[in-house]
């Protein structure tokens, strides 16, 4: 490195606003946090900064507190530094530079290292800041960009300007729709659109449309307040009273996945970064933001391996969501599974409950109750069956084990909570005695009853394979698809029997259904038996109260089904994720009447906007459903008005189209007439275009095809 690099550095420093000669690196105390908690208000600068593809100085670190060495020892020191820092990431070619005092020829006690990526630079800063080379030399490592940023902080403290209070928009305005309609968002091609489901007019009613609104997918927050979009720079949420304004941004470069806490107080974002060294695992960054303030409440960084334990699937070995939130709107706890432990955090301080994780040897899977701070977890069999598998329930924050059930010869377990947290069903696959095959049974926990009684349920034919299981939302029933494809059976059970509320009973079994998925209405009672994908989109709308089929239908090739949050309508869709043709969605009434359909090429997503839970007490809801007739009168009258209006509009539209067409026709006739003589000329005076003016002539054509002679000889008397 010679003079040229020095000028280069100076140019760089100047560009960044640093006067190198004035810097006393030791005097700079970096405050914690990436951005000091200050979010830029200046949109343009923010975007420019983020859109920069060249990483700028983001991948360069400054290592200070190095020994000051004379020329002879320069190379040795450089070698040591290179060794330390190339363990962390790939240093760019000519990316290590240790400046030298031109007069004394001694090094200056600091150096610059440029990595291939900002992630590596950040990792190097984290890992080596405070590294003891020897007693006198403890590394102080900083990002060069931080110098830049903190040089800009004005010397004089000025009190922040107090902005006048501006009342925010009503973010739940959509719930006040006079016609009580629901919204949904769709993504097709580059467009993302939000619509009202205007079932009365049998069409979607547009609310908002934007091209390139998101770079991968969109997601509603669990109570429907926000619509989240994903971008290269981070995530953003949108909402508002009349349209969709951007409410907040969450900076997280290359974010891939997001997840809201159930009470939508927090947003978890995830990104995974390719390491420079292909032998290393991907580096994972997870941030937890406060949705309303945009502040990072906690971040987690580490190698992908640390986040990949537990359930299978997900992106690059990580099962998403990594952090699972305890149920309810309080958003009090979140937890992640690790090797031999479950780490439960609380959101007051964003640290571990009791400062330590819950140690459970070999824990495989866990799931929160949807309503209470109760964890259900599953531990598989150990030591060839010496230690049985078990399912345990833990109370948080006390970490008290509420109930435990040991299970023998288990191959796998899957846990299903009922939506009110009243029941937990555990599907247990057990080996037969020969260990060659498995059979399935259910363990049913009654959480709300004293001592949490457990009941064992086996199907009539316990060798039946279980294809799908689903609890009735808010209810006491569940449905199971079992048996063999292509025509399995569907059974319905209740956690109550006629005489005993504490015993499970079978309601009915439907034989030979073309179904592989179950979709309960969110208000219970109704269910769709669906044969998705391989079954070509067979749909059966079933009333579980009456145990009767309301309708059967088909949405050919359907891949997705989603009930609206009220249980009045249901959408079926063919998304291009599975299938390139037939893309689009159908909207049905709860009882299986097709209301309207929309076809869209490259259809990716259909999502109903969720609603917050109703404020009505269960008693009030009961009362309303009992006196439904009284309430429905008004709506029926409205419906009739709408349908009258519709047919009126339709008539008008048709009349308009016809009139318009007549105008064209008469214009064409006129032109045609005008050009008549000219056309005649083109035909050498031959009469005209009209059919009747042709003279019909009968022409008989006789053709001699072939003449041949053949001599036939007859012999008599042969018979």
């Amino acid at each position: 490195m010679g003079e040229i690099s020095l000028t280069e550095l100076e140019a760089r420093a100047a560009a960044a606003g640093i006067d190198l000669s004035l810097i006393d690196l030791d005097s700079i105390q970096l405050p914690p946090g990436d951005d000091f908690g200050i979010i830029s208000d200046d949109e343009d600068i923010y975007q420019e900064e983020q859109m920069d593809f060249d990483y700028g100085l983001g991948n360069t670190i400054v290592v200070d507190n190095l020994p000051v060495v004379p020329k002879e020892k320069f190379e040795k020191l450089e070698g040591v530094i290179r060794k330390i820092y190339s363990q962390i990431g790939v240093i760019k070619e000519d990316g290590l530079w240790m400046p030298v005092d031109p007069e004394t020829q001694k090094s200056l006690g600091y150096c610059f290292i440029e990595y291939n990526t900002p992630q590596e630079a950040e990792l190097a800063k984290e890992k080596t800041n405070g590294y003891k080379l020897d007693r006198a030399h403890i590394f102080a490592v900083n990002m060069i960009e931080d110098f830049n940023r903190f040089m800009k902080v004005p010397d004089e403290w000025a009190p922040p300007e107090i902005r006048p209070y501006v009342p925010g928009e009503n973010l739940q305005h959509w719930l006040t729709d006079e016609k009580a309609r629901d919204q949904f968002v769709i993504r097709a091609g580059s467009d993302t659109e939000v619509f009202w489901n205007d079932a009365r007019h049998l069409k979607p009613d547009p609310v908002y449309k934007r091209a390139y609104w998101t770079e991968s997918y969109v997601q509603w927050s669990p109570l429907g307040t926000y619509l989240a979009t994903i971008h290269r720079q981070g995530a953003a949420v949108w909402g508002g009273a009349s349209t969709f304004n951007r409410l907040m941004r969450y900076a997280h470069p290359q974010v891939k996945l997001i997840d809201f806490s159930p009470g939508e107080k927090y947003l978890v974002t995830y990104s995974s970064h390719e390491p420079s060294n292909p032998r290393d695992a991907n580096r994972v960054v997870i941030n937890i933001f406060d949705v309303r303030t945009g502040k990072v409440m906690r971040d987690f960084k580490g190698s992908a391996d640390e986040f990949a334990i537990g359930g299978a699937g997900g992106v690059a070995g990580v099962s998403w969501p990594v952090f699972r939130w305890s149920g309810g709107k309080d958003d009090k706890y979140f937890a992640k599974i690790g090797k031999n432990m479950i780490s439960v955090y609380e959101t007051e301080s964003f640290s571990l409950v009791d400062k330590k994780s819950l140690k459970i040897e070999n824990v495989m899977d866990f799931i929160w109750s949807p309503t209470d701070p109760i964890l259900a977890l599953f531990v598989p069999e150990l030591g060839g069956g010496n230690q049985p598998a078990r399912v345990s329930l833990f109370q948080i924050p006390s970490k008290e084990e509420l109930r435990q059930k040991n299970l023998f010869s288990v191959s796998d377990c899957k846990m299903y909570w009922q939506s009110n947290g009243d029941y937990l069903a555990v599907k247990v696959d057990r080996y037969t005695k020969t260990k060659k095959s498995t059979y399935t049974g259910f363990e049913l926990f009654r959480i709300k009853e004293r001592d949490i009684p457990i009941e064992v349920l086996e199907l009539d034919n316990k060798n039946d394979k279980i294809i799908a299981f689903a609890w009735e939302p808010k209810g006491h029933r569940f449905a199971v698809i079992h048996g063999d494809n292509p025509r399995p059976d569907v059974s319905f059970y209740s956690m109550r029997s006629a005489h005993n509320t504490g015993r499970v009973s079978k309601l009915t079994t439907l034989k030979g259904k073309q179904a592989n998925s179950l979709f309960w209405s969110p208000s219970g009672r109704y269910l769709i038996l669906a044969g998705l994908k391989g079954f070509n989109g067979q749909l059966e709308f079933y009333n579980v109260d009456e145990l009767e089929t309301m309708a059967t239908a088909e949405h050919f090739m359907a891949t997705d089904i989603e009930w609206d949050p009220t249980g009045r309508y249901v959408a079926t869709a063919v998304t291009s994720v599975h299938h390139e043709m037939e893309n689009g969605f159908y909207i049905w009434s709860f009882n299986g009447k097709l209301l309207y359909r929309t076809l869209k090429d490259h259809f990716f997503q259909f999502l109903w906007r969720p609603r917050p839970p109703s404020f009505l007490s269960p008693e009030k809801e009961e009362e309303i459903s009992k006196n439904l007739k009284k309430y429905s009168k008004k709506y029926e009258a409205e419906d009739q008005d709408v349908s009258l209006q519709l047919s009126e509009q339709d008539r008008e539209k048709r009349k308009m189209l016809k009139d318009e067409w007549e105008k064209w026709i008469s214009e064409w006739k006129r032109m045609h007439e005008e050009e008549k003589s000219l056309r005649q000329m083109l035909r050498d005076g031959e009469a005209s275009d009209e059919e009747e003016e042709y003279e019909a002539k009968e022409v008989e054509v006789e053709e001699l095809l072939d003449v041949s002679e053949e001599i036939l000889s007859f012999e008599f008397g042969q018979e």
Partner: protein
Amino acid sequence: MRPILMKGHERPLTFLKYNREGDLLFSCAKDHNPTVWFADNGERLGDSMLLITASADQSVKLWNVQTGAQLYTFSFNSPARSVDFSVGDKLAVITTDPFMGVTSAINVKRIDEDPSQQSGESVLTITGPAGRINRAVWGPLNKTIISGGEDSVVRIWDSETGKLLKESDPEVGHKKQITSLTKSADGSHFLTGSLDKSAKLWDTRTLTLIKTYATERPVNAVAMSPLLDHVVLGGGQDASSVTTTDHRAGKFEAKFYDKILQEEIGGVKGHFGPINALAFNPDGKSFSSGGEDGYVRLHHFDPDYFNIKI
């Protein structure tokens, strides 16, 4: 409505045309043999006079319909795609494909009354549009030529000078390749079909978009009833991906639309490959469809058809 199935081709159909009297139906397929049928009963014939055919063998041929004799062959240096006689039959417009460095072109030939005097010289050659020009037809009084093709633009050319007069508005026009183009009986308007899953109706003189018919499948062929305000769209999923899915996915139906209201009124199923060609009998009482499956299906309408009310 029981169709008459005409199996005379061994390869996918490419074009269907009735003669002006409506008693003969001509069909072209990829098997090199244009075939002519009696339009009422579907028997093969073997009192129009002149037939012109375009072929990918880089030739366009004139035929005597009665004898089946070839009268003349125009040779080109790239495959010919479509042909159309002018009013009075004195001119023919022929489109040729881009091929081996030759760009696509619209050629106008003079057709001599005496075939022996026929010359191969082009009266006019128009080049310019990128990609194949799938159809070119004559405008009113032979003054213009209307073309549509791979670049999804409908163009009107001056047939004397070859000057481009009008182009369809890309905002409202087709988004993908135009596969077919057919004129109304009086030539006042025309219908284009496109792989963008729609057909559009245009005014021939002003190139104003009048109607759009949206469907669920790429449109390969279009036809207009000369009798009722109906249009028919044919097509279906691309032949190359047909076998990958259930037969219902293909939707190889001829779809009928109300010409004015743009609403679908019915469909005629039957083909087991995409429909490549459609033609109405000039009397409006029957139509035929030709498919990738090699069949020509000749449909005589039931009496009910003429009483459809919406």
